């Protein structure tokens, strides 16, 4: 049964992929041309020299990718990478982004998928650099065969990893100076935010809800580390080794966290009102104290430049909790 299901699943993937095949190459060529013209007219600050060698993969990977010339037709298959590209000023060089990328607002969204990538569809945009978060289905090998360099940027594991990835994006696109500037700005902003966190938040606990079946995060995750930097402790830490455990509802209620973060308002339509109406939840102190906060799921799962925004809004919420500390 199972293998049949898998087979059929694969077949349907192929159908999906095939349906993504037809792409508008004229539009992408125009975009590439206009980007090239623009870079001639107004060269960005801090251009690096090409060819350049950039580390690819996670922070302890030894893989490298060589980029021969300043890329002018970048395809991004990762929403986080898309945000980094535009933040370092390489937005003009981007011709296509995947179907999950939606920030900044006017990114060139296509039906390309980063989860089920189709090499042919990607090649339809005639890219000279592809950035992806992972390598499913021989993506890198396929693009390699076509001579297209692929920069892999998996989900960052901590802030330093985010900074390093931004700098790698900067180096790969000819925006080394812009990237360094952005990282410096982020570091300064974060230091400023953390300096204003009131003392006495150490005893505060939180429950971060990923979906309406009570998947949560421990302190052992990127987002858990962000909360920890504000003094907060996850109730899910009791669940042990799994960084993203599915919690028992009765455990959540009896753990009675000081604050609840809802990262499932977009995916699952959960609201603070619904949380209050859940059977058994009405008496929780976060509910009675109106400390159930929706968080932007995209900002709270893409560890790029907007991590600063997430930290700032969370710090503002924590500041209102002060009496508890």
């Amino acid at each position, binding site marked *: *049964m199972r293998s*049949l*299901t898998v087979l*059929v*699943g694969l*077949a*349907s*993937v192929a*159908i*999906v992929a095939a349906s993504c095949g037809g792409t508008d190459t004229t539009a992408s060529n125009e975009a590439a041309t206009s980007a090239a013209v623009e870079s001639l007219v107004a060269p960005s600050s801090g251009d690096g020299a090409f060819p350049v060698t950039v580390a690819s993969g996670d922070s302890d990977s030894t893989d490298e990718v060589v980029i021969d010339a300043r890329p002018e037709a970048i395809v991004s298959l990762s929403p986080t990478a898309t945000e980094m590209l535009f933040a370092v000023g390489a937005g003009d060089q981007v011709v296509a982004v995947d179907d999950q990328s939606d920030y900044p607002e006017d990114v060139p969204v296509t039906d390309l998928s980063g*989860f*089920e990538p189709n090499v042919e569809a990607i090649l339809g945009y005639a890219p000279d650099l592809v950035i992806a978060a992972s390598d499913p289905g021989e993506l890198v090998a396929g693009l390699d065969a076509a001579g297209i360099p692929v920069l892999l940027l998996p989900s960052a594991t901590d802030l330093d990893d985010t900074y390093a990835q931004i700098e790698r994006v900067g180096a790969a696109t000819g925006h080394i100076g812009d990237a360094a500037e952005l990282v410096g700005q982020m570091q300064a902003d974060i230091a400023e935010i953390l300096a204003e966190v009131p003392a006495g938040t150490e005893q505060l606990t939180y429950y971060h809800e*990923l*979906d*309406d*079946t*009570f*998947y949560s995060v421990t302190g052992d995750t990127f987002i858990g580390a962000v909360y920890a930097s504000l003094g907060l402790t996850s109730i*899910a830490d*009791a*669940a*042990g080794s*799994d960084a993203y*455990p*599915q*919690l*028992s*509802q*009765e*455990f959540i*209620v*009896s*753990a*009675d966290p000081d604050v609840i973060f809802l990262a499932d308002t*977009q*995916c*699952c*339509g959960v609201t603070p009102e619904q949380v209050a109406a*859940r*059977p*058994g*939840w*009405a*008496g*929780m102190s976060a509910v009675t104290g109106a400390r159930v906060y929706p968080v932007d799921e995209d900002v709270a799962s893409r560890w790029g430049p907007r991590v600063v925004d997430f930290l700032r809004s969370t710090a503002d919420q924590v500041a209102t909790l002060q009496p508890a500390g």
Partner: protein
Amino acid sequence: MTTTLNRAAVAGADSGTRHGVWSGRHGLVIALCGLALVVVVVVSTFIGPAGLRPLAVLREFGDALPWVSVESGLSSQQRAVLWDIRLPRIVMGVVVGGMLALAGAAYQGVFRNPLADPYLLGVSSGAGLGATIVIVSGGLIGPFGLPVVAFAGGLAGVAATYALSSTVGGPRSAGVIVLAGVAVAAFFDSVQTFIQQRYDETIRSVYAWLLGQLVTTGWGDVLSVLPYVVLSAAVILAHRRVLDVMAVGDTEAGSLGVDPVRTRLLVILAATLGTAAVVSVSGLIGFVGIVVPHTIRLLFGVSHRVLLPVSILLGAAFLVAADIVARTVLSPAEIPIGVVTALVGAPFFLIVLRRARHADG
């Protein structure tokens, strides 16, 4: 494998002497299994990550009885955990487990096939496709839409299986029915996978549903499925004697005054309605419909007069026990309950298959 079951069914139905010391003492068997269910349920109320003391839980129950007033020592928060979270979940386990086991036993009876269950007949896949459509459409169909659409899907699944097997080898060929069911399930699964791929932002809730869960259950969920389950169980139980007669074969049943086509249709409709209702709230919890009825046949014989009511009782006990495992092994984290039942059920399924093949050869 059918012939074995048929022969056994005839023996069990006729005399009750061939299968175990329990055959023939229906009342006692049913009472004992009922007691087993009560024990499992009571023990289950004592266990959970919130760590309520069993004695306090007992006192709390005592306090809830009319004209009894006991101080349980539970805080209002703990009372909420017990009454609003733990109890509805246990009751849901009873309803879902009982229904799935009963439906499994009923399908095995009408198709005269020991491997028939909601999975192999395309019912679960059809209901799954219906539920997926409701989930990805963002609940546009309304809060009561999920059970209804799941039922429609489940019915479409079993109807397609039945129609397909009729055109190929006739509905009496058990092997053809299972093969048709596999083909239909594969087709529905592929459509479902396709939809999932297109709407990957809801993939987690679809995935959670596919693994089976009693997680989000409150009293509202229990009440919403109960009418369908009661109706379904009543119809199936009312046919318990007729199913025994049908076990000997359609022609023979016909000569005894039973309309096999009409009976089969009614029982299939009822079992599908009940399955779709519980599947729409609990997701796909597998193997209950195989493990429980077969264990009962081994222990108590194959007469539907015992098999069907005891399937409800032991199916309920099995699922409540499985849920204890699901919520304690990694406490306070959860394991999807479908994983627990499959862990027990898959090896069991192989044993049943082996026995059936040995008996055949």
